[in-house]
């Protein structure tokens, strides 16, 4: 994030803390994709992910008056999303809506053959992610989908960088094996 954007974000959060509810729409607009993607990849179900992402923003709004700028808003929000995902995964068996996820995944310009192959790969990828233990899954999502560095992930998850590397390495190994078994090629 640029310094300009960070300053802007600081002002927006201040305005929210002073009771300007409308300013919060800027933050929701800016980070909706982040929250939704993390929830989707963690839960494997688009509808549930939408609910969880929305609930996360509502919780963040409620807790914003205690936000002290010791971390980025995006990191704080991500930790809220992941907590809600963990609660959801603990409370019920995950429902796997792989087809739905494949439909709404980020569109890239590819020819029909590539599109079909990409669709199959996306399905296999989400199935593989669903099979990972949740703590491996969240490390993989943050590292390779959100492309965050280990220090930021450590701040979000509250675990040491060493422990995170172990989770990421093991998660990658498991993911690789699952993808090979499903016959995925790039």
């Amino acid at each position: 994030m640029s310094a300009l954007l960070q300053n802007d974000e600081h002002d927006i959060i201040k305005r929210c803390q002073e009771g300007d509810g409308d300013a919060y729409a800027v933050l929701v607009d800016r980070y909706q994709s982040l929250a939704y993607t993390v929830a989707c990849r963690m839960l494997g179900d688009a509808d549930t992910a939408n609910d969880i992402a929305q609930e996360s923003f509502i919780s963040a709004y409620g807790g914003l008056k205690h936000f002290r700028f010791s971390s980025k808003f995006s990191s704080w929000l991500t930790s809220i999303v992941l907590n809600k995902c963990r609660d959801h995964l603990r409370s019920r068996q995950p429902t796997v809506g792989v087809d739905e996820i494949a439909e709404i995944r980020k569109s890239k310009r590819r020819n029909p053959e590539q599109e079909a192959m990409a669709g199959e790969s996306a399905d296999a990828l989400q199935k593989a992610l669903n099979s990972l233990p949740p703590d491996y899954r969240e490390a993989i999502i943050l590292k390779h989908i959100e492309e965050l560095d280990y220090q930021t992930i450590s701040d979000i998850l509250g675990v040491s960088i060493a422990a995170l590397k172990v989770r990421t390495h093991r998660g990658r190994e498991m993911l690789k094996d699952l993808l090979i078994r499903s016959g995925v090629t790039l």
Partner: protein
Amino acid sequence: MKNMNEAIHRLLDGDVSAGDKDAIIKKIQDDPVLRKEFDDLGTAVELLEREGRMQPPLAFTASVMGKLPRRADPLPARLKLFFFGSRVLRWNMAAALGIALLTVVTALLMMRQITHIGTDPAFPSGEQAAMVRLTFVAPDARNVAVAGNFNKWSTNSNVMTRENGTWTITLPLKPGVYTYMFIVDNEQWVTDPHAETYRDDGFGYQNAVLKVTI
């Protein structure tokens, strides 16, 4: 092999020095097993990174904003909003027709009231009227009426009442000049002997003249 496996992960994390990186890559290239391991892991990582972010439904922000708890504004802010905040009037055809009907009925009722006031005989033009008392002494008369240009010379519209031999009547008359006569026992036209002035009626009699002012 275990150490090399860890080295591959560190390579994927970008967590190796330039010198170590070249050495690790050389070992990978020289060993088919390591090369396959590296390629497969690289495939998984590339697939993850290629998928990237997903977009939520279009109404996501609006939906979140609609669910936020409303914070109570301080009283001055609420008063300012009440008096100066812009409002949007939501209407439908039924409500609009109802208001139009109510407006028409109210207008008709007001017009009727105005018409009623304008046609009141006591206040023909809505002007204020003076209450004028006429008296006529005729102890032997059976009845006395007054006729004048204020009642189109009607002989029985304004019948006077008797009080100890004196006949009286009180008429509401707007400002102006009037002529009149008394009619005694339905047949005898008599000029008011106490009139201020008189005017010839053209038939050989004198009409009493009454000037009303307010």
